[in-house]
């Protein structure tokens, strides 16, 4: 590490105790370290591949254009904050274009018509139900649940990324999860009703 005092970072991990800050990465490093992560978060937030690709690309374009302006701080924090802001922008744009979210029925279709092994189909359906439940949450609850449970962020990190007070982080995570649980219970109940001995009816 350099011997000069580090400049004030504008990432949320600003550490007055002098802990190492992330140096500015090269674009290749961004691609390698964050390429998959950003798309995965975008996918979990938006619930579908097209919106995920749009969001991920928007994030990468912004990072590309502003990488030279990144001051040593917490690169993760900077990147997540960009992701959150662009996600909320996308939500606002989509609201103007699409009045209804995808229905649960659309999501319950298996990803392919090939039946495959039963447990694989079961897992895909569970993933679809779960993702539909996440997509049905209001944007703020979705952010809370994805940042906490998909990205494994602490409440403090989520608060720094989103700008919400800790109490709000905690309550949005809780309300997001309880709604998600209700959604899953209903979805599984419907799925059970629609099958006979594990096979689809009729």
């Amino acid at each position, binding site marked *: 590490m350099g011997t000069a005092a580090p400049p004030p970072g504008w990432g949320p991990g600003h550490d007055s105790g002098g802990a190492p800050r992330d140096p500015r990465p090269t674009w290749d490093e961004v691609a390698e370290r964050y390429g998959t992560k950003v798309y995965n978060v975008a996918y979990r937030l938006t619930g579908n591949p097209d919106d995920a690709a749009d969001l991920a690309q928007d994030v990468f374009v912004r990072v590309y254009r502003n990488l030279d302006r990144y001051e040593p701080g917490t690169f993760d924090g900077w990147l997540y904050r960009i992701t959150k802001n662009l996600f909320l922008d996308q939500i606002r744009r989509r609201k103007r274009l699409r009045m209804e979210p995808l229905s649960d029925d659309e999501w319950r279709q298996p990803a392919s018509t090939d039946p495959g092994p039963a447990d694989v189909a079961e897992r895909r359906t569970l993933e679809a139900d779960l993702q539909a439940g996440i997509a049905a949450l209001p944007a703020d609850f979705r952010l809370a649940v994805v940042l906490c449970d998909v990205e494994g962020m602490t409440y403090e990190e989520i608060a720094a990324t989103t700008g919400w007070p800790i109490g709000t982080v905690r309550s949005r995570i*809780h309300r997001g*999860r309880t709604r998600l649980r209700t959604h899953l219970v209903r979805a599984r109940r419907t799925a059970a009703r629609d099958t006979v001995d594990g096979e689809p009816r009729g």
Partner: protein
Amino acid sequence: MADGCQAAVPAALMHIGDSWLSAWVDGELTAAERHAAAAHLDACPHCTADLAGLAKVRGLVASLPVRRSPAGLLAAAAASARLAGAVGPSAGAGTVAASDTGPLTAARPHANRATQVAAGVAVLAGFLGGAAFTLGGQPLPQERVVRVPMDAFVADHLVRTGGGPVSAPVLVNGQP
């Protein structure tokens, strides 16, 4: 407390409300809050069951498979940013010292140039053709990292145009 709660509300948790349950699952309660919560859980089967349900949802979300982007998404983003006029990160930015113990690995040497250029043409053609983002509902195979020779392109561009607007590069046999 939650509907159906069967024991007294601990004073230490009053200010949090129901979300103490999720905070417990996430290990985000203070020692005092945790102590009060443990005592309450011992006396309240309802909250204990509630807690199990929340932990399960958390576990399910946490074990969702990682979804992979279409190949070339990052390179297409860089291309898109340049088409819109961005110069992009400078070539030498963020060189990591060998002794640096930060979280990022040192930059790797670029792949063979001919391969890079060929890959760059393919990526840009895909982006311009709009075919890059058509996807089914399936998880995608392992992402292929496509390296685009951006530094060389930017340098060429600046020499040729004196910093004018960026147009899509046309490369024939790897040469502009």
